[in-house]
Each structure stands twice: as structure tokens, then as C-alpha cells.
């Protein structure tokens, strides 16, 4: 087997790291900081398991620290371990069959991440600045985001603008690789109360990544040669998100979200998400979740190439293919008092070519299915 053990979890986490580092804080209606006598702490544990591939265990701690009536600090810590196997490339099999070559099952990695969100109240808004960093065996990230949000119209409208910058370093276990990757992002959003029972939010984010954007653990078959994954050194992305939240009698709420995404690699994606939150007796809350996703492939994706491309740009990373996915999830939360609650959740995810409901889809030898379970506790001291 090729590269046995070398496909570290970067394969899986490279992009999420970048995304997390660049993402910006959200908009809440009416800017506030923590009261001086409130110190909230949230802990969650995640167990994530793919059928036959990766397994991830992660711990998250979020801590709120009041400073004074105009300032506070939110600290987020994360530690995760990953192990398992990962796809490397595809090769043609008998007939139309496509065979997936995966790494051996000896991949391991760990990741540590921290962020400090300093928030400062202004006359009618809030300014926040968030330095963050993360480290794993083959990936490092340092980032900073700044956001300003302000209320108008008696706090019935909240605007937000933000900017983010990330400086990442990519290496690879078992390879002599040390490459830079840079990310810049802009964010703008507005949240509007529609009436006493509903609100809407519109967000736009623009991101530009540059530098080494390939996956060092992926290969591609071009005619009879096996080449490295080689993507463009620049990527511009646009995401537009609309969310609608409505209260439903009695004691329930419906959350709808739609996101349109496109980038200059040819990927266009649609995400539709719906959540139903139902209050039950004795302070229980049940949330049910359904998410549908589909995307068009990148211009330079193919499971394998029979002829070389003039620009030498290739990727057979299935994440750049055309496919759809479905996620179904449930979360149960019990509030014990005004300052303590517990929650558990489970989510099932399936990604498959023929789940794409419009346009062409890419052949995938095997659907990806995974299960994600979380346990959480929240307490305010």
C-alpha cells in the first residue's frame, strides 16, 4: 500500500482548520457583555466515527470571563485526537468500476486550538477582536478576526461587519514539505426582527486563500503516472446565507437556513438546513435537524485522468467532486436550574454522488457515512 500511515488527519482537517480560523463571530440581537457575577463555562465532548475510515475524539471548553461593565473575554479551547484510514486516489477497475485506494489504518494525529475573544461595548454596539491559534503534527495556524456590530431601530435591527486574517503552515508526515498558506476574509450581516414571533438574518462572506492549497497526502492517476495533488495557488470564495426563525405555538421554534456558495475553482454549492426545537415538560428541549447539501465539482477534478492537462493542475480528492449529502440529527437538552444544563446529541451523515438532485454527479465507489455524537454540560458560576 502506498504511503501507509502517512495520510495524517490533515487530510481530513486541513480545510476545516482554515475555515474555523477564518470564520467570524455571529450576530446576536442587542449587544451585551457578561454580567460581573456571571462566569459561564461550557464543556462538550465529540465522538466522530466514519464507517471504515477515520475516528475523532474531541473535547471543547468555552469559558466566559467578565472584566467590567463594558468588557469581557470569551476563551475557547479544543483538543482532539484522530486515527484511522483515508482515501488517497482512484484507479479504473474492470468495466466502469472505479477502485478507491486508501491509506493503511495506522494514521494518527492530534490537534490543539485556542482562541481569545475580547469584547468591548460601545454606545450602541460592540467591538470584538479574536486572536486564535491551532497546532497539529503537520499543520499550524495563527489567525485574528475583528468584528464590529451595532444595533439600530431600538435593537430591532443589528448590523455586523468583520475582517479576518490567517497565516498557516502546511507540512506532511514523511515528506519534506513546508509551505505557507494565507487567508483573508470579509464578513457583513444584518439581523432584523420581523415581528414578535420571527426574525431573519442575511450574511455575506468573502474569502481569499493563497499559497499551498493542495493536499500533500492525495495523489492522482494521470494516464499511467501517479502524480501529486496539485491545485491552483489561489482560491476566491463567496458565501451568502439567509436564515429565518419563527416561533410556533406552542413552545416550539422553526429555524430555516439556506446557503449559496461559489468559488473560482468552479464549485457551486447549495445548503438547506431546517431545525425544529420543541420545549417539553420539566425543562426538556428536543431539537430535530435535517440538512441537505449538494455541490458541483471543481474544474480540475476527475477520479483519474486519461490525458494530461495543459496547466498541470489535477485533483482526485473526492471532496472536490459533484455529490450530495444528507445529515439527520437530534439533540436533547435538560435545564436543571437557571445556571446548569446538560445535553446529548447524535447526527448521521451520508455523502454520495447520487444524492445530488440536479445536474451531473461524480461516480463514487463507496458512500461516506459517519456518526457524530456529543455530550455537553453548561454551568454558570
Amino acid at each position, binding site marked *: 500500500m502506498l504511503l501507509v500511515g502517512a495520510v495524517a488527519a490533515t487530510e481530513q482537517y486541513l480545510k476545516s482548520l482554515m475555515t474555523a480560523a477564518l470564520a467570524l463571530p455571529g450576530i446576536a440581537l442587542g449587544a451585551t457583555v457578561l454580567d460581573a457575577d456571571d462566569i459561564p463555562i461550557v464543556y462538550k465532548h465529540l465522538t466522530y466515527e466514519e464507517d471504515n475510515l477515520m475516528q475523532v475524539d474531541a473535547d471543547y471548553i468555552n469559558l466566559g470571563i467578565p472584566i467590567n461593565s463594558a468588557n469581557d473575554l470569551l476563551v*475557547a479551547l479544543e483538543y482532539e485526537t484522530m486515527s484511522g484510514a483515508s482515501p488517497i486516489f482512484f484507479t479504473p477497475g474492470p468495466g466502469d468500476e472505479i477502485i478507491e485506494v486508501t491509506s493503511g489504518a495506522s494514521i494518527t494525529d492530534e490537534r490543539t486550538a485556542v482562541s481569545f475573544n475580547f469584547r468591548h461595548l460601545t454606545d450602541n454596539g460592540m467591538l470584538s477582536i479574536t486572536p486564535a491559534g491551532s497546532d497539529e503534527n503537520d499543520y499550524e495556524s495563527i489567525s485574528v478576526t475583528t468584528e464590529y456590530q451595532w444595533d439600530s431601530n431600538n435593537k430591532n435591527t443589528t448590523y455586523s461587519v468583520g475582517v479576518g486574517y490567517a497565516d498557516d503552515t502546511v507540512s506532511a508526515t514523511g515528506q519534506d514539505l513546508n509551505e505557507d498558506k494565507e487567508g483573508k476574509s470579509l464578513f457583513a450581516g444584518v439581523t432584523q426582527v420581523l415581528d414578535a*414571533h420571527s426574525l431573519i438574518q442575511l450574511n455575506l462572506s468573502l474569502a481569499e486563500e493563497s499559497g499551498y492549497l493542495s493536499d500533500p497526502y492525495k495523489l492522482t492517476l494521470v494516464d499511467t503516472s501517479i502524480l501529486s495533488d496539485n491545485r491552483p495557488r489561489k482560491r476566491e470564495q463567496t458565501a451568502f*446565507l439567509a436564515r429565518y426563525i419563527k416561533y410556533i405555538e406552542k413552545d416550539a421554534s422553526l429555524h430555516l437556513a439556506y446557503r449559496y456558495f461559489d468559488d473560482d475553482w468552479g464549485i457551486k454549492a447549495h445548503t438547506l438546513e431546517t431545525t425544529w426545537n420543541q420545549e417539553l415538560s420539566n425543562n426538556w428541549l428536543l431539537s430535530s435537524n435535517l440538512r441537505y447539501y449538494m455541490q458541483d465539482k471543481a474544474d480540475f477534478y476527475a477520479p483519474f485522468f486519461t490525458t494530461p492537462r495543459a496547466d498541470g493542475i489535477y485533483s482526485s480528492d473526492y471532496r472536490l467532486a459533484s455529490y450530495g449529502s444528507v445529515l439527520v440529527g437530534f439533540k436533547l437538552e435538560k435545564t436543571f436550574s437557571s445556571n446548569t444544563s446538560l445535553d446529548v446529541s447524535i447526527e448521521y451523515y451520508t455523502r454520495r454522488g447520487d444524492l445530488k438532485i440536479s445536474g451531473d454527479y461524480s461516480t463514487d465507489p463507496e458512500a461516506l457515512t459517519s456518526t457524530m455524537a456529543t455530550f455537553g454540560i453548561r454551568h454558570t458560576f
Partner: protein
Amino acid sequence: MNTRNAIILATSFVLLSSGCAINLKPWERGVLAKTHMSVEPDALQRTIREQVVTSKESSSGGFSVVGGGCGCN
């Protein structure tokens, strides 16, 4: 972003900031104050979800998730 997206977006923003000049009084906001009526009732859960799906898919952004996340309030 292409021109069509820009126009849709600009129109939406203008509609929201002018057409919907609703003005709820604080005492009319009881329902909106419920935790599950907030835009992101459990921000840390959102962070985890986005981490999982963006490691399997090729799009991201738009959702208001902090780097590292915080559901502290």
C-alpha cells in the same frame, strides 16, 4: 462574486434596512428572548457541526461561527 449575486444581495439588504422598519417594544419581545429563538441557540454545537461537514465538503462560510467557537452566552 458575480454581478447577479451582488444585485440580489444589495436588494435584500436594502429591503431589510428600510422596508421592515418594525419597532417592537421591549415588553413585546418575550418570545424572541427564548434561547431557542436566538439565531444560534448553541454556538459550540454549530462550530462542531461545521468542522465535521467542512472536512468532507468543499464549501464554507456564511454561518456566524467563531474560530474555535464560543457558546458562552
